[in-house]
């Protein structure tokens, strides 16, 4: 009955939801930011350790739906080791695939992020998938306040 929704809820999403990666506090984080989606109450705290413009470590804590948890978990895996500029460009790409403005993006080049492309068919859930990424953008910009998806 619910098979048709597997484009959104892929096994990888369930796996990251059940066992989120990097779900921890970084004690010596250089940036820490709270993200909030007022629509559904999802909250995330993102920890970032930057050294010489490179994301040396990244982690998160919080509570949210399967889509936001999996997206945060996958994000922490793919941005570690990137420069701030590379992370910023990846955010821009991710934003485009989740909103369907991705004619020039090849899904196979996206690696792990591709599993979240299905969210574009569910406009009400796009903010779930992008909460962690908006938090990352704000952390890189060193904004000290809570970021909101609204």
């Amino acid at each position: 009955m619910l098979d048709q929704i597997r484009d959104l809820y892929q096994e990888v999403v369930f796996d990251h939801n059940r066992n989120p990666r990097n779900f921890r506090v970084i004690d010596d984080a250089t940036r820490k930011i709270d993200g909030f989606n007022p629509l559904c109450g999802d909250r995330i705290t993102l920890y970032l350790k930057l050294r010489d413009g490179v994301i040396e470590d990244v982690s998160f804590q919080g509570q949210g739906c399967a889509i936001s948890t999996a997206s945060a978990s996958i994000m922490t895996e793919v941005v570690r080791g990137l420069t701030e500029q590379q992370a910023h460009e990846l955010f821009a790409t991710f934003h485009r695939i989740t909103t369907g403005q991705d004619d020039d993006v090849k899904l196979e080049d996206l690696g792990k992020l591709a599993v979240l492309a299905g969210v574009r068919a569910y406009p009400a859930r796009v903010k779930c998938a992008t909460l962690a990424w908006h938090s990352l953008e704000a952390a890189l910009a060193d904004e000290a306040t809570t970021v909101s998806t609204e």
Partner: protein
Amino acid sequence: MSIALAQRPRPVADPHHFDVARIRADFPILAETIHGKPLVYLDNAATTHKPRAVIDAISEVYQRHYSNVHRGVHTLSQRSTDLFEGAREKVRGFINAAKAREIVFVRGTTEAINLVAQTYGRANIGAGDEILITAMEHHSNIVPWQMLCAQTGATLQVVPIDRRGELDMEAFERLLNDRTRLVSVVHMSNALGTVNPIETIIDRAHRRGIPVMVDGAQSAPHMPIDVHALDCDFFAFSGHKLYGPSGIGVLYGKEALLKAMPPYQGGGDMIRQVTFDKTEYNELPYKFEAGTPAIADAIALGTAIDYLQEIGMTAVAEHEHRLLSYATERAMHIPGLTVIGTAHDKGAILSFTLERVHPHDVGTLLDQLGIAIRAGHHCAMPVMDFFGVPATVRASFALYNTAQEVDALMDGIQQVIEVFA
């Protein structure tokens, strides 16, 4: 009244039998399919669907009778005015107010509460005074008072709730004091379903001479309302939750209070005479109805009230209670499901959480099965904080829902649990 909308004969209802199939046939949208499945609409606390009579009424007003009200000498203006004032009279009868001039048309419950806060509140509440609300209020019965407090230096006091989602009535009595200037309380909680003992609340407040505002957004669609018997000072509800159009709602206020209150907004229709030196305000209720109102929507709200009166609000309440009891019983047998809001006196709202599945995911998956529920904080974040949850799943029932739809919901929840297992 010289004008009425066309009568569409319906078969006479059997007073001893709540014929839900017959009612469903009156609601065109219930024939819709969603993702190939029949629509199971269980988001009625957010808004209700409209019977054909309401949809037709809007269409008929615009096709045959429409013009501005209280303005022209021409026929259409007179017809619209008669229909508009006829709707006001229907609202008066529906809640048993003494006079039609105690019925103020507003956009909805939210505007009604803001109106009272900014008129009655600004005129009667000052620094050091207290406004008493409860911990289960919708944001629309919190924020207008916070704004008033910021403007006046008054403070907001909050009656706590317990784990069942019932008011702590001992705390309520303790919180009532010589500084309390107004009690504003929700009749039925949109997040928990709790029906509050407003008779007792009004009695205790009145013993101290304190007026009471009742937020009836959820109660008016689901139970008989008698503002005369309640003796409440203000009562507010929304048309769109009452099978009527959106953008129209009602503020009831006791005549003596409304008379003494300053106007809300300035403009046309709320004045008697304007010069550049001074303005004389119109009589009730027009003093509070500046500008062209939602004419067709108010008239169609009258049609929705006719529709409900024919079925009878007691019959509606009984039907919805049967659905709630059945849904609650089935929900209790689902492992990992926790009902949020288990008050003794409840309206037809089932709010719950599932272990390991976030409400937002439940909402998306159930939608695939054609089932519309609300997932979120229900504009009652303090309630969510109290229960320690970010959000709940909420199924809310209306007169057109059936036991089969409860079954569809429960089967759908089982499928969601399996997908997330």
